[in-house]
């Protein structure tokens, strides 16, 4: 498996009235091409902050202090790794939605209630795929079967050729703003709409031609989440990040969406980075799992390993606390509370709640150690840290 995304020692802090919240404490994780990586943890553990740091959309008052986020967009070319934290904002804008897409928990908040569905999905095409669409239009215009009036056709051809070469030309931007000249975009918008209908159909929404003209309030929750996924997948990204995308949905709708994601992974996307607190979803759809606690990555392993052979005490406790179908007896809960990240416990952040705390756990933070089967754990019980 080739690496797609690698974060190295990511540190993110939030500067609040109560103090500096050390949200991420040197998080290093690896996502491979063609896998579904599940990032699991409870609220406040930093999983959302991690992916937002990767996409560089951390909210105020947060700051990415340190670390590297390296993406290898080209699967074959391993040397072409780019550190996202060093890139300009313009580069990130081109990247988001095109190579790496993100979907959020609340579909109501993700869709603009005043724009039609078609407009919102086309936005993605119009921003990222202008060049391809213009080239295609030029091809259509020069094809022998074209029925448009000849001088008009030549005029449009010239404009679109120019647009295909430099889609961000200043002159074109001026044309967009002027009343009559902005009609040059008509073909472009039609092409975008065609692609929109295609992707909406691909996501299993019935009657895509009608849906494209409707507004978000005409649709149900499950449909809205599908549209959000459509916007994310419009430009065939290499990585889809889903931040608790199914937490708000009903059980049957969640089942539909998970099925959909599984199907699309093979066709449209290469990899998915799924954030969730639901271990059931993880067991369903993930290939590799990372468990986070209080800003640290505790354990990373393949999904079967995690469920059959959990090594980190937090993972064990989490698996014990989840209600299962065949469980008998009392659910074991974890003693204590999530620590305050303004003043986190020294050493291993889990040590106040861990049933197996040793002296060294209080003093030094454990390092990630690899134990057979591609299984990584950060715990002094397994592997000595750095001794």
């Amino acid at each position: 498996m080739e690496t797609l995304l690698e974060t190295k020692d990511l540190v993110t802090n939030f500067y609040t009235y109560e103090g500096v919240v050390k949200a991420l404490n040197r998080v290093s994780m690896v996502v491979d091409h063609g896998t579904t990586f599940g990032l699991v943890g409870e609220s406040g553990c930093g999983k959302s902050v991690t992916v937002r740091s990767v996409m560089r959309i951390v909210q105020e008052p947060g700051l990415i202090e340190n670390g590297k986020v390296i993406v290898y967009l080209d699967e074959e070319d391993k040397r072409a790794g780019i550190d996202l934290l060093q890139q300009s904002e313009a580069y990130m804008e081109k990247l988001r939605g095109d190579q790496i897409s993100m979907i959020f928990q609340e579909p109501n908040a993700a869709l603009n209630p005043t724009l039609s569905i078609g407009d919102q999905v086309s936005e993605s095409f119009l921003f990222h795929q202008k060049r391809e669409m213009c080239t295609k239009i030029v091809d259509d215009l020069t094809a022998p079967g074209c029925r448009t009036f000849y001088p008009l056709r030549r005029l449009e051809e010239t404009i679109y050729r120019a647009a295909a070469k430099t889609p961000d030309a200043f002159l074109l931007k001026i044309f967009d703003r002027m009343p009559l000249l902005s009609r040059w975009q008509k073909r472009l918008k039609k092409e975008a709409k065609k692609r929109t209908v295609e992707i909406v159909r691909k996501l299993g929404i019935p009657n895509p031609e009608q849906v494209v003209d409707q507004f978000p309030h005409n649709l149900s929750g499950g449909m809205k989440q599908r549209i959000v996924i459509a916007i994310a997948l419009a430009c065939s990204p290499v990585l889809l990040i889903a931040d608790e995308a199914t937490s708000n949905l009903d059980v049957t709708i969640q089942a539909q969406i998970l099925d959909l994601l599984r199907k699309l992974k093979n066709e449209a996307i290469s990899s998915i980075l799924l954030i969730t607190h639901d271990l059931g979803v993880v067991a369903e759809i993930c290939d590799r799992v990372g468990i986070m606690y209080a800003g640290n990555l505790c354990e990373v392993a393949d999904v079967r390993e995690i469920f059959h052979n959990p090594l980190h005490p937090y993972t064990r406790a989490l698996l014990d606390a989840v209600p299962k179908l065949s469980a008998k007896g009392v659910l074991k809960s974890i003693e204590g509370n999530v620590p305050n990240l303004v003043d986190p416990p020294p050493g291993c952040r889990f040590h106040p709640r861990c049933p197996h705390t040793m002296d060294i756990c209080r003093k030094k933070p454990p390092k990630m150690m690899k134990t057979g089967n591609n299984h990584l754990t950060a715990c002094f019980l397994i592997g000595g840290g750095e001794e």
Partner: protein
Amino acid sequence: MQKLLELKKLKKYYPIRGGVFRREVNTVRALDCIDLDIYRGECLGVVGESGCGKTTTGKTIIRLQDPTSGSILYYGKDTEPGSGLDIGKAKRSTLKRRGIRSRLQMVFQDPATSLNPRMLAKHIIAEPIKAQIPMRGRELEDRVIELLKMVGLTRDHLLRYPHEFSGGQRQRIAVARAIATDPEFIVLDEPTSALDVSVQAQILNLLKSLQSRLGLTYLFVTHHLLVVKYISHRTAVMYLGKIVEIGDTGNIFKQPIHPYTHALLSGIPIPDVEHKQQRIVLSGDVPSPVNPPSGCRFHTRCPFTLDRCREQEPDLLEVENGHAAACHRHDEVEKLIYEKFGGSQAAA
């Protein structure tokens, strides 16, 4: 087992107003003819998806909302033994006067909004006590501390605002508030949905221990089937304002009868890698409760619809001991599912 509450043909309709004079143009049938018995000391789980009416059931029983028609008979400590009082029709002031108001309480879903953000924990818990009996000063504080200890908090937590607590602790305060007036019946509306997994386990264990300690009766409303399996003795499955299946929790999970129950159970993401999922994926979305389908409400999404299902609404009939389902084809559903989807959906 003694009955605590008996719902007879309970209906709750919400009018939709439209037009110039805001006349009633349509109705949302949130609850449509519910018959339900709740026994003393049990935890009855109510499951279903959004729009099925489970929250409305809870709120209507304790008179947070008034029922449109039907009766809610209450056989409590303060009523004459033998005959129940119809709390559905009684006036709010009667309920308060007879002390019944404090016997029916509720724990809400979101601990962030169910506590007044401008009140200290001490006052939040003291309020229901003060509304009922004129206790004050030292005595009141002692009682509040006693309640805090019962839910696992300490006296340090008295003088703090809700935003200074974590989600789990806030929910504990909400529970303390609910048990402050010595209630008999508590409606728990998705109390753990907004909480983390480990905290959820703590709260569920707390609720279980309080139930046995104080002899409470719970109505546990949730959409999370595994939680219902852990905590409730009996379970009712609701769809679009009607109860489609009800029975002992073990039976419902081992041998579900209604096709909707089968679909719900197969849809749960199981935290177990070995479990092979044969999913019954239902087509379409939940119909709107404004215009529910004719006949059996589930017929638009059911894979085994017959003509009879479209025309006639099935009654909730007892199939086995205590296990009732509302389906015309209840004796063949198991076989039909096996034919169509292969493998048994029943979980161990």
